[in-house]
C-alpha cells in the first residue's frame, strides 16, 4: 500500500488540520514529522481535502507545511504474550523502557514496542494440520506467568480457515511464524504469536453473551453483601475528592477474585500510581502465591500527560481486558477516573467547535460512555469456556454533585452504583460508600431477602436519627432509640472496614456470612434494655467486642474471646426473635 501524505495547514492546541491527497479513514493514525520527531495523532474529522487530527503529544514547534504520513491503520494495541506485569502509557508505550532510554521525562515522539521481540516463549501446539479454524480459535499456548496464554487465530481473520502448517513445540519469539492457514480460495497467511487490534472496536469473537449472575468477590463487606458486583458486570464509584475512590479501587485491585486486573490510571495523580507501581511487586497474591504485579497490567496516563492519549487510555485498557477474556479468564478493569476521560473528550470537542451539550460536554457523551461500559460482559466462547470483563469506573463529579452529566450518563448504563459521600468520609467511616444512596442490580453472596431485611434497619435507623436531630434524644421512644442504635451498630461493625488492618482488609465470603449472621442475631433480637443509657452502653460494649472480632484471625484467642463476649452479652439480655428474624437467620445457616 502506498503511504498517503499530507501537510499541516493549521494548528490549534493539540488539534491540527492536515491537507491530504487520496483517501483517509476516520480514526486513522497519522504521524506528523516535525523537528526530526514523529508525533502520533488520530484523524477525528474529515472535511473535503482537510482532515483534523488530535495529536497525542504537545504540539509546540509544529509549523505550517510540516509533512504528515497517514498509516492506514486505526489506533491499535499489540496483543500477544508478555502483556502481564507491564506498565504502559495510554498508547501502550512501556514506561520502564522509556525511562531507561530517556530518563526522567516523557519526551514527545518516543514510541517503543509494547512487547519484547526477542524474548522466547515455550509454544505447545494444540490445533492439528487440517483443522478448520475461525478467528479467535486457539492454535496452541505458551506459559505466561501462571497462565496458559492461548495463541489465537488473529481476530481480524474473518471467514473460515484451514490449518496448513503448525510449528512444533519449542521456543519462539512473538514474531516467529508458528502457523500457516489457508482460506477457501487457497490464499495462505502466516500467523505469529502477536497481532494488533483497533482499540475502539470491541472484540467480538465469542459464541454468545451471557447474563452476569456470578458474584465477583471483592472481599469488601459492604460491596459483597449489600451492593455486589457480578463477573461481567459494570459498576461506578462517584465521589467528591478525598472520599476515598482511589483507595477503594486499590483495595479492590488487590483482593478481587479475578484472574487478571487491569488498572487504567486515567488523568489522576501520578503519586497514586507510583504507590501501585512500587508496592504491587512486593505483595503476594493469596490466590497464586506469586507477586501481585504478575496478574496486573497498568495503563498509566496521569493528569499531566497529554490529554488526547488520556482519551485513548481507557480504550487501550479495555481492549487488553477483552483479549484475556478470549482465553477464558475473568478480567477486572478499574478505570480511575472516567471523568478525566470525559473531560478529554470535552477539550477536543471544544477545539472542533462542536455545539456543546450540558456543562460543555459533547452531545455524544452519553452514547460514548454507554458504548464503553457495554464492552464489559461475560461471554461463552466458541469452545464452550466462559470469560468475563468486569468494568469498575470512578467518577469525579464537579463539586461532589452527582447531578452532573458524567455521573448521570454513567448511572444509566452500570449495574451497580457505589456512591461515596463526603459526610461519611469526614466522619472517617470507610469505605465511604453511602448505604442508603447506593444500589446494585446483581445477585450477591447472601440471599437477597436477608440483605433487604438487614438494610431495612439502616433505613429506619437513619429515619430515627433524622428525627432525633429535631426532637432530641429525650423526645425519642426507647424502641425507636434501640432501632437507631441497631443501624449505627451494623454500620460500625459491618459496613465500615479497616483497609489497613491485615485481617479486616479482606474478608472471605465464608467469613462474611459468619459475621453477618452474628450481626443479624443482634439486629433481629428484641432485647431487654432498661433505658437509653443502658441501651447505649450495651451496644457500645457489643460493638467493641465485634470490632475486636473483625481484627482477629479465625482460630486466634482474641477471636474466640470476642465471640464469647458477644454471645454472653446477648444471652444476658434474653433476646427474642420474631418470625421474620427467625426466617432470616435460618436462611444463613
Amino acid at each position, binding site marked *: 500500500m502506498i503511504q498517503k501524505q499530507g501537510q*499541516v*495547514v*493549521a*494548528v*490549534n492546541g493539540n488539534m491540527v*488540520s492536515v491537507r491530504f491527497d487520496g483517501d483517509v479513514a476516520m480514526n486513522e493514525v497519522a504521524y506528523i514529522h516535525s523537528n526530526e520527531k514523529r508525533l502520533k495523532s488520530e484523524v477525528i474529522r474529515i472535511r473535503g481535502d482537510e482532515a483534523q487530527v488530535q495529536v497525542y503529544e*504537545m*504540539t*509546540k*514547534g*509544529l*509549523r*505550517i*507545511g510540516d509533512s504528515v504520513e497517514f498509516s492506514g491503520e486505526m489506533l491499535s494495541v499489540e496483543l500477544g504474550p508478555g502483556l502481564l506485569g507491564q*506498565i504502559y502509557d495510554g498508547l501502550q508505550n512501556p*514506561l*520502564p523502557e*522509556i*525511562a531507561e532510554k*530517556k*530518563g*526522567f*521525562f*516523557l*519526551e*514527545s515522539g518516543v514510541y517503543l514496542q509494547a512487547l519484547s521481540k526477542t524474548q522466547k516463549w515455550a509454544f505447545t501446539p494444540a490445533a492439528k494440520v487440517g483443522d478448520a479454524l475461525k478467528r479467535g480459535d486457539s492454535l496452541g499456548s505458551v506459559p505466561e506467568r501462571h497462565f496458559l496464554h492461548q495463541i489465537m487465530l488473529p481476530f481480524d481473520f474473518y471467514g473460515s480457515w484451514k490449518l496448513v502448517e503448525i510449528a512444533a513445540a519449542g521456543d519462539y519469539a512473538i514474531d516467529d511464524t508458528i502457523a500457516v492457514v489457508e482460506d477457501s480460495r487457497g490464499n495462505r497467511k502466516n500467523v505469529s504469536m502477536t497481532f494488533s487490534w483497533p482499540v475502539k472496536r470491541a472484540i467480538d469473537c465469542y459464541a454468545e453473551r451471557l447474563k452476569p449472575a456470578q458474584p465477583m468477590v471483592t472481599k469488601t463487606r459492604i460491596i459483597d453483601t449489600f451492593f455486589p458486583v457480578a463477573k461481567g458486570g459494570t459498576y461506578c464509584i462517584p465521589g*467528591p*475528592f*478525598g472520599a476515598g475512590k482511589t483507595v477503594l479501587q486499590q483495595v479492590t485491585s488487590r483482593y478481587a477474585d479475578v484472574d487478571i486486573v487491569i488498572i487504567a490510571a486515567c*488523568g489522576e*495523580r*501520578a*503519586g497514586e*500510581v*507510583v*504507590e501501585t*507501581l*512500587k508496592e504491587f511487586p512486593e505483595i503476594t497474591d493469596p490466590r497464586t502465591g506469586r507477586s501481585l504485579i504478575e496478574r496486573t497490567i497498568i495503563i*498509566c496516563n*496521569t*493528569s*499531566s*500527560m497529554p*490529554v488526547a492519549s488520556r482519551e485513548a487510555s481507557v480504550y487501550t485498557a479495555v481492549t487488553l481486558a477483552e483479549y484475556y477474556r478470549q482465553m477464558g479468564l475473568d478480567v477486572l478493569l478499574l478505570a480511575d477516573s472516567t471523568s*478525566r476521560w470525559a*473531560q478529554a473528550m*470535552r*477539550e477536543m470537542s*471544544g477545539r472542533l*467547535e462542536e455545539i*456543546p451539550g450540558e*456543562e*460543555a*460536554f459533547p452531545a455524544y457523551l452519553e452514547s460514548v460512555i454507554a458504548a464503553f461500559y457495554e464492552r464489559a460482559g461475560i461471554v461463552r466462547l466458541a469452545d464452550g469456556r466462559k470469560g468475563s470483563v468486569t468494568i469498575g469506573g470512578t467518577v*469525579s463529579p*464537579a*463539586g*461532589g*454533585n452527582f447531578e452532573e452529566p458524567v455521573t448521570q450518563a454513567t448511572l444509566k448504563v452500570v449495574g451497580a452504583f457505589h456512591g461515596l459521600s463526603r459526610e461519611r468520609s*469526614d466522619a472517617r467511616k470507610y469505605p465511604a460508600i453511602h448505604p442508603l444512596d447506593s444500589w446494585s442490580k446483581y445477585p450477591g453472596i447472601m440471599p437477597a431477602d436477608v440483605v433487604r431485611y438487614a438494610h431495612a434497619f439502616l433505613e429506619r435507623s437513619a429515619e430515627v436519627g433524622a428525627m432525633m436531630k429535631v426532637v432530641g434524644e429525650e423526645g425519642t421512644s426507647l424502641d425507636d432509640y434501640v432501632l437507631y442504635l441497631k443501624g449505627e451498630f451494623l454500620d460500625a461493625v459491618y459496613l465500615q472496614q479497616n483497609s489497613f488492618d491485615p485481617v479486616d482488609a479482606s474478608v472471605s465470603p465464608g467469613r462474611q456470612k459468619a459475621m453477618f449472621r452474628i450481626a443479624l442475631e443482634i439486629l433481629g433480637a428484641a432485647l431487654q434494655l432498661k433505658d437509653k443509657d443502658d441501651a447505649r452502653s450495651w451496644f457500645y460494649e457489643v460493638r467493641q467486642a465485634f470490632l475486636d472480632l473483625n481484627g482477629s484471625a479465625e482460630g486466634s484467642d482474641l477471636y474466640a474471646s470476642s465471640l464469647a463476649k458477644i454471645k454472653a452479652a446477648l444471652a444476658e439480655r434474653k433476646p427474642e426473635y420474631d418470625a421474620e428474624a427467625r426466617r432470616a437467620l435460618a436462611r444463613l445457616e
Partner: protein
Amino acid sequence: MNKVYSHIESITGNVISVRAENIAYGELAEVSSRYGSSLAETIRLDGDMVFLQVFAGGRGVSTGDEVRFLGHPMQVSFSDNLLGRIFNGAGAPRDGGPSLADNLITIGGPSVNPYKRIIPREMIRTGIPMIDVFNTLVKSQKLPIFSVSGEPYNQLLARIAMQAEVDLIVLGGMGLKYDDYLFFRDTLEEGGSLAKTIMFVHTAADPVVECLQVPDLALAVAEKFALRGKNVLVLLTDMTNFADALKEISITQEQVPSNRGYPGDLYSQLAARYEKAVDFADAGSITTLAVTTMPGDDVTHPIPDNTGYITEGQFYLHGGRIEPFGSLSRLKQMVNGKTRDDHRAIMDGMVKLFAAYRDTLEKKSMGFQMTAWDRKLLKYGELFESSMMDLSVNIPLEKALDEGWRILAACFEPRETGLRSDLIQKFWPARSAGSEAARA
C-alpha cells in the same frame, strides 16, 4: 536574521494576527508599538495566518506596528545568578538588576515519567505545629492553602518560606497586590532568605497574559535546580488569579466555557502545573504550596474543586489559623510514623479532643449546662488554640509534641485522653496534675 512583519491583520482582546510563513507553534515574537515593545506567543496557526497573544495586551497596538519573530518559544535564563532576583511574568527583571540571557531553557516542558517517581519519604519541617504535628508537609508534596480573601495566607507563605528546611525557594506571584509583593520582598530580605529565593511576580496591575506565564517560569527554574540536586520549595500565590486569567483569555478567544465560565481544560491546566511536584530518585525535589482563595468560601467552586482532585490534600486557613478540620495532608502517613513514637497518637488524640471541645462550645452557645468534663474541654480548647493553632507559635516538631503532652496534662487525667498506656508511661509530664495517675 528574523523577519519583521509590519502589518497586523486583526486585533481582538490580547490576540493579534499577522500573515507570516514558517512560524512554529508556540514561537515568540516581539511586538513594538508606540507604548513600548512586548513579547507575544503564537497560540494558533491557520494557513499563513499567525495568531499571537500579546503579553502586554492589545491596548494601543496599531495595525501598523512591527512584529518580529524571535525563532524560539518562551524561555527563561537558568543559572545561579537567578538567586535573590525578582522577575516579572515576561521574565524581565523587576528589581532593577541586569537582565539575564545566559543558558536559556524552555518553559512548560514535558511531564515526568511516572515510572521514575519514587514514593515520598521525607518530611519538611516548617516550625508550625498545625503543619508539622497534625498535617505534616512531605517532600515532593503538592498542597494548596484554601482560604478566603482577607485571611493572612501570604503571611503564612512567607513564614513557611523563611522556616522550611529547603535549599531554595521559588516564589510565583500571580495577581499580587503591589503591597503584598513588597511585603514578600521585605519579609524575605529581613529574614535573610532572599539570597536563596527567586521571585517571579505578576502584580494585579500587570497585563493578564503575563499572569499565565508565572507558574511555568517558576516551575521550569525549580525543575532545573531540582535536577541539580536541590530541594526546592515552590510557593504560588494566588492560583485563583491564574485560573481567572485562563478564564478571561479563553472567553475573549470565544472558547466554549464549561462551568461558571471557566474553560473545559481547567483541570488539565492546573494539573500540568501541580504535577511538576516531584522527588527525583537520585537528585533533588520540588514541593509546591499554592494559595487558592475560594470565592465565597465555597469549596465546590470550580477552582478549589478541581484543585482538590489534583493535590495531595489541603491546608484550610480560616479565622487566621490552620483548621484541623478540613485540612488534610494525604502523604503524612508516609512520614509521621518515623518521627517520634508519640507523633501519631498525639495527632489523633488531640484532634479528637478538639472535636469534642467544638461540640461543647456549641452546647455552651445554646445555653446548656456545663459539666465538669465540659469545663475540662473548654480549658483544653483554649490552650490548644493559643499554644498550637496560633500562627505565631514557632517551635520544632519535638517541642510541639512536648507542648501537646503539657496541654493534655494541664487539663486531663491520663485515662481521659484515650492515648495508649505505654505512651502515657513514657511521655506524660511529671509534676503535673495527672502525674499521680500516671504512676499508678
